[in-house]
């Protein structure tokens, strides 16, 4: 199996995907990023590193994940034949464990002692705290105060794993602020600290490195579909926050331009500033923040705009630079779906297939629900179920649980008070 292949849409040696990406960081990070790039290039060529990673993928994370034919959903939508790539069945519940294992191995190789990470939904933080426990690293996780409040179960689990979880109280108190807090922590501890970035973004080499550790998703899809259907997919659909699960699914297929790729952004509550996290709809604007050049939601002075999404993992103003490039080259089509469509998609997948997708992944399902009915019956669509919905119990409970859910919470809090 070839884990690390290149495509025509990859970065040059300075980390530029066309005009996007690069490394826009204070001189304080230039040295450590340079070392990281070198170490990563070496590790990719080291069969021992690759063997160890593959062993962890299989025996720790639970790879390969199933590629499951969703027959009832297919029938209901009446178009393309729908397969689900079940990344949510991985240990810790989402695809994030893939790049955490890869990066933890790299941190170990570099002799680092402490992992630093940001998290939105808490899935990346959870996966980081998990690998920190497994490898014996200290661990500090930054989380926007808003996300900290709405993803409390994950905060609790991270602490159980021994991580220090720090709510970030400045800015918009969301993922972007957590990214900055983590970068700043790293800036103060470049010797012992390893910044374990949680998506395919940030300064070079992160966008390429995170993608490489995620591209196993698409590699497996190719092999599994060959076995099950004897053919390639026609459509691939994934949600796009920073872009790691989407690029992980797409990358293996980028050079095959017959395959249609669809990224789904968070349309949130509406079109106004602060109501969504749809960076590539309307008139996307190029900017530079958090160490990379890409499309960012921003105001008339270039300040990064506030965002909203029902899913914390997509509630982010920037998008990984390779996605910016794929958008500009029109290789991937990016659509957006609303919070409401997402909740409907969540319920539909639960009721037709017995699967709870994470709210992030439910965006991909909602995108597929829109597109699949217009496809031919012999076309194959693969949806990336990047995570499972367990972590979203409290949000979905509030949205769909009605009075009985509220009563339950009140009862629990009464019991605790007593």
């Amino acid at each position, binding site marked *: 199996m070839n884990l690390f292949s290149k495509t025509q849409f990859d970065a040059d040696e300075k980390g530029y995907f066309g005009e996007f990406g690069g490394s826009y960081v204070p001189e304080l990070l230039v040295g450590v990023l340079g070392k990281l790039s070198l170490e990563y290039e070496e590790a990719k060529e080291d069969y021992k590193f690759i063997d160890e990673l593959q062993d962890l993928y299989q025996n720790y994370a639970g790879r390969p994940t199933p590629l499951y034919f969703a027959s009832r959903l297919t029938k209901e939508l009446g178009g393309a034949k729908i397969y689900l790539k079940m990344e949510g069945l991985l240990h810790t519940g989402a695809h994030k464990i893939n790049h955490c294992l890869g990066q933890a191995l790299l941190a170990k190789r570099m002799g680092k002692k402490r992992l630093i990470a940001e998290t939105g939904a808490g899935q990346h933080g959870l996966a980081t705290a998990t690998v920190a426990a497994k490898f014996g690293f200290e661990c500090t996780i930054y989380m926007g105060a808003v996300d900290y409040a709405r993803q409390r179960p994950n905060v609790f689990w991270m602490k159980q794993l021994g991580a220090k979880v720090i709510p970030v109280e400045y800015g918009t108190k969301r993922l972007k602020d957590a990214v900055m807090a983590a970068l700043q922590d790293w800036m*103060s501890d470049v010797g012992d600290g390893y910044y374990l970035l949680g998506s395919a973004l940030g300064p070079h080499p992160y966008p390429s490195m995170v993608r490489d550790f995620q591209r196993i998703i698409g590699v497996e899809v190719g092999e599994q579909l060959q076995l099950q259907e004897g053919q390639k997919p026609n459509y691939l659909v994934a949600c796009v926050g920073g872009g790691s699960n989407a690029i992980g699914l797409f990358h293996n297929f980028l050079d095959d331009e017959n395959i249609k790729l669809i990224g789904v952004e968070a349309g949130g509550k509406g079109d106004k500033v602060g109501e969504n996290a749809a960076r590539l709809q309307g008139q996307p604007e190029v900017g*530079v923040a958090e160490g990379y050049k890409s499309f960012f939601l921003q105001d008339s002075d270039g300040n990064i705009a506030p965002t909203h999404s029902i899913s914390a993992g997509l509630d982010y103003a920037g998008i990984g630079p390779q996605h910016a490039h794929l958008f500009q080259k029109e290789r991937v089509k990016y659509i957006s779906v609303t919070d409401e469509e997402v909740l409907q998609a969540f319920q539909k997948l639960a009721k037709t297939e017995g699967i709870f997708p994470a709210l992030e992944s439910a965006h991909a399902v909602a995108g597929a629900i829109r597109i699949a009915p217009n496809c031919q019956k012999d076309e194959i669509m693969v949806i990336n179920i990047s995570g499972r919905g367990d972590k979203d119990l409290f949000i979905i409970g509030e949205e769909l649980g009605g009075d009985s859910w509220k009563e339950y919470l009140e009862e629990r809090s009464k019991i605790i008070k007593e």
Partner: protein
Amino acid sequence: MNNINKQYEKIKKENRMGLMTHVVLGYPDLSTTRDAVLIMAEEGVDFIELQIPFSDPFGDGPTIHNANTKALSSGFHVKDAFDFVSSLHEKDAVQIPLLFMTYYNVIFHYGIEEFCKKAEEVGISGLIVPDYNFSAEAHDHFLEIAKKFNLILINFVAPDTSIKRMKKIDEDAEGFVYCFARHGVTGAQKNIEASLLSYLEKVKTNMSVPLAVGFGISEAEHILAIKVSADIAIVGSAILRSLEVGGVAGVREKVRSLMEVL
């Protein structure tokens, strides 16, 4: 000759160290910023960094970050920065070199060419942009454009910058080089790291421009400690703190205490 170089010649003639201080534009409001700048100029500060607030100030610790957020939420816009500098020159007759300090997206979004043109027009001498480093130059041509408009884009070095890279940075360096005193973000701190002096000596041997040292330089004693190796001291958060605690009078007192040891 650029005003920054002129001022440095004056510093050398007076056989002392230089001082660069810092304000966040519009914090807590523009008239206070103006008062603070005028006091700094009166007290004999050599250079002033005027920070244009940004939503995501990458290199700044909590003190300056909060000042950025507050300035923005009270309605500060980039165009106000240009007007402010115009009036400092025209109405208040400020003579010392003024530099804009901000994050790259503010300039990138404005249009690099437009921004530099405007900055030159209002009489800015240099730009300090911590999240831009020369590896982006082939794509962004920021240094080249700044030069075209007679602005000095200040370069940086860090404690772990290699000698090879220092020499490369030195090729295009003008005015002075901003030496990060330590790894971290802006913010006052108690002690100066022991390794600082040997690092500064390394910079001195390998670069041809004056050394300005900032990040964690907050007290007169810090300035005394770096005096043998540094040419200019940069004080940011500590002055902001004195503004918060003692208003503009606090700024005057703080600046005086720093000036005394130059």
